[in-house]
């Protein structure tokens, strides 16, 4: 009798025990090696991260959905992937900590009196509606699971701050102020960097769009004319696509001020560059990251996709994200994975009680006594000038934007 048969002499039914492979498409914002390694260990699945810059990931997301299982990007990208019908609805009942997810993605604000912010508020694209489109009317089916979020601004080298700005309140206008003499860099995504530029031009020039989160053709033309004029004056040093570019530029001093995301900020701190993230008086440009499941995913891979998403809200990943400067959709569960000093600095806006580590455990990323820009979680996420946006005229904006960048 062979070993594969039972005592009764019959072959047991075949059980597929091969490890499930889950392919995640996203950006360096969340797809960290330490996250992948821990998820592999905790979930017993094989996990493959495909890390692209945001614009490239958007393109793959819409045009090659069969190449990934989970799309880890931002809520404003729902405007691309949902009409293209490349994702499947997420069953909220299968999201273990869904009831713990706070009011921000579910209602559009953390507290009832806070400003909703212009642009693509996540709540307006969170729920699948009866006709299959997305909207804010609650349902049990989600387009994207809300995970990480933050309020962004720009960073600048404190040692290179022009004297004309030294005593002034931080403003988006700084991002196009000629006194930085050609050392300005803006991020290169039409849904993100273009908004940084719009906030800057609005704060500094005679350009007042009716809705900065949904510009008209004439407003886009006005914005581009002003940006081209600034380019001709050699105001900008570059438009960056990836963290590495802005990190190198700012570390070397070629870039003195620019759109700056947390991973680059952390790296610059590690390198010892004197960088400050601004808390602009006009408010922040906010973003909400999340995960969607590709339409083709079924069976064990689909189970693994839900396991992976549930794992993200289970506490530990949220603590890693906190050390990178990002908030998680259900902060209380990450609280127990952070020290009091870390919770105090990242979420409560308190001075660091001691030196704090970075997301990869690198020591002393935050020095004792430092205070986060803009205050605590509620204060920062309630001062939203605009959300990252895909406007009605996004196709026009993107083509004009790239033309301006290439001019």
């Amino acid at each position, binding site marked *: 009798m062979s070993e594969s048969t039972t005592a009764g002499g019959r072959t047991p039914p075949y059980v597929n025990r091969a490890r499930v492979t889950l392919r995640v498409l996203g950006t360096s914002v969340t797809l960290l090696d330490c996250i992948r390694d821990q998820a592999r260990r905790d979930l017993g699945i094989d996990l493959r991260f495909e890390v692209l810059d945001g614009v490239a990931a958007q393109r793959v997301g819409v045009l090659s959905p069969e190449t990934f299982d989970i799309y880890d990007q931002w809520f404003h990208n729902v405007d691309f992937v949902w*009409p293209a019908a490349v994702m499947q609805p997420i069953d909220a009942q299968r999201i273990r900590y869904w009831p713990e997810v706070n009011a921000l993605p579910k209602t559009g604000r953390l507290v009832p009196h806070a400003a909703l912010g212009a642009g693509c508020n996540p709540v307006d694209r969170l729920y699948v509606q009866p006709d299959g489109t997305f909207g804010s009317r609650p349902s049990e089916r989600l387009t994207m699971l809300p995970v990480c979020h933050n309020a962004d601004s720009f960073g600048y080298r404190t040692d290179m701050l022009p004297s004309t700005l030294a005593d002034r309140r931080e403003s988006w206008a700084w991002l196009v102020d000629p006194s930085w003499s050609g050392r300005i860099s803006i991020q290169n995504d039409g849904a993100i960097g273009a908004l940084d530029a719009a906030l800057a031009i609005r704060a500094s020039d005679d350009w007042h769009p009716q809705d900065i989160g949904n510009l008209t053709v004439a407003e886009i033309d006005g914005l581009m004319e002003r940006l081209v004029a600034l380019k001709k004056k050699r105001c900008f040093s570059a438009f960056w696509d990836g963290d590495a570019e802005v990190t190198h530029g700012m570390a070397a001093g070629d870039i003195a001020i620019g759109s700056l995301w947390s991973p680059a900020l952390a790296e610059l701190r590690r390198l010892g560059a004197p960088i400050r993230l601004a808390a602009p008086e006009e408010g922040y440009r906010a973003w909400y990251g999340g995960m969607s499941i590709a339409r083709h995913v079924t069976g064990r891979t689909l189970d693994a996709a839900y396991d992976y998403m549930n794992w993200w809200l289970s506490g530990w990943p949220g603590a890693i994200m906190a050390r990178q400067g990002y908030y998680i959709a259900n902060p209380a569960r990450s609280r127990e994975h952070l020290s009091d000093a870390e919770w105090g600095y990242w979420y409560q806006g308190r001075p660091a009680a001691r030196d704090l580590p970075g997301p990869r455990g690198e020591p002393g990323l935050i020095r004792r006594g430092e205070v986060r820009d803009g205050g605590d979680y509620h204060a920062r996420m309630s001062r939203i000038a605009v959300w990252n946006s895909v406007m*009605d005229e996004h*196709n026009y904006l993107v083509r004009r934007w790239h033309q301006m960048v290439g001019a």
Partner: protein
Amino acid sequence: MTHGALLLSSKSVQESARAAGRPLRYQAIYDALGRALREGRVSPGLVLLEGPVARIFGTSRGPVRKAFEQLHRDGLISRFDGRGFLATDRPAHVPPRRETLTAARLGLAADGAPVVDTRPTAERIYAEVEHAVSTSIAFGQFRVVELSLSQHFGVSRTVAREMLARLSHQGLIEKDGQSHWLAGPLTAKAVADDYEILRLMEPPALRAAAPAIPRETLRPVQQRLAQLIAGDVPVDATILTGLERELHAHYLSCYANRKAANMMARSQLPRVVNRIFFDTLGVTCDEPFFVEHKLVIDHLLYGAYDAAASSLLAHLDAAAARTRRRLKVLSVFTEPALPSYLVRTC
């Protein structure tokens, strides 16, 4: 504009057909006629002439001549004492019959779809230009250069000018201050403007035309939509955009106000957005378009003309919202290769 002028130069059309993997013209004509002859669908003794057959197939006479020669070698048609060939292998026993040649006479209608593009060459070239121009506008603003256009197709400047006038009539291009023809850019505002025109004009036009639309022409449309909803027949971008054009033309087929009809015909940017969207991403059978249009047809067949007009309005509103969302998706598409007569201005 004469077709003759355009017929001088179907070279690039031939090349693009070859590149697209379509059979050569003469081959397609040879295959179709050969099949019809073998299956006895052509009356014996019918006189086959190059000119009329070329018109039926939408080609010049060259490919027809070549196809005839091959059919003759195969013994399917014969020479006789007159112009052209006889549809028989026994010319001595079958008298020649001269009749006005049509696709049906050539036994082609039974094949269903025409085997080659049956449009005249001028139409085919125009369709190619219209396709290129309407595609380009999603990616920015382009100047359509008359000289390059005439060189590209090997046609005269007059013919190129005629094509530009037609594009302009369709609302796809307009002249700038320096008399340059400009196409695009395609904006959400321009698409919304077109929808505004359509929703103001189409439902009342349908209401006015409805009693005169023959019912027997509506039933096949209703059936076809039902099949598409059930997923019984495959659907692609060409079918969908063709169907949309057909349906709207159908609604207006008995509408007497030509001025208003022209205005609606010029408002076609929504169709451009949807064509590019579906060309790139494909179409699914749950596309709401089918259900919305079936409602209109159902109401027309019941004689509920007001309800038909309301359903058309509801369709236009829903389509406007869908198209606005689809236009955003176009922003991640990479710019396709465009012909040299389109020069980017911004």
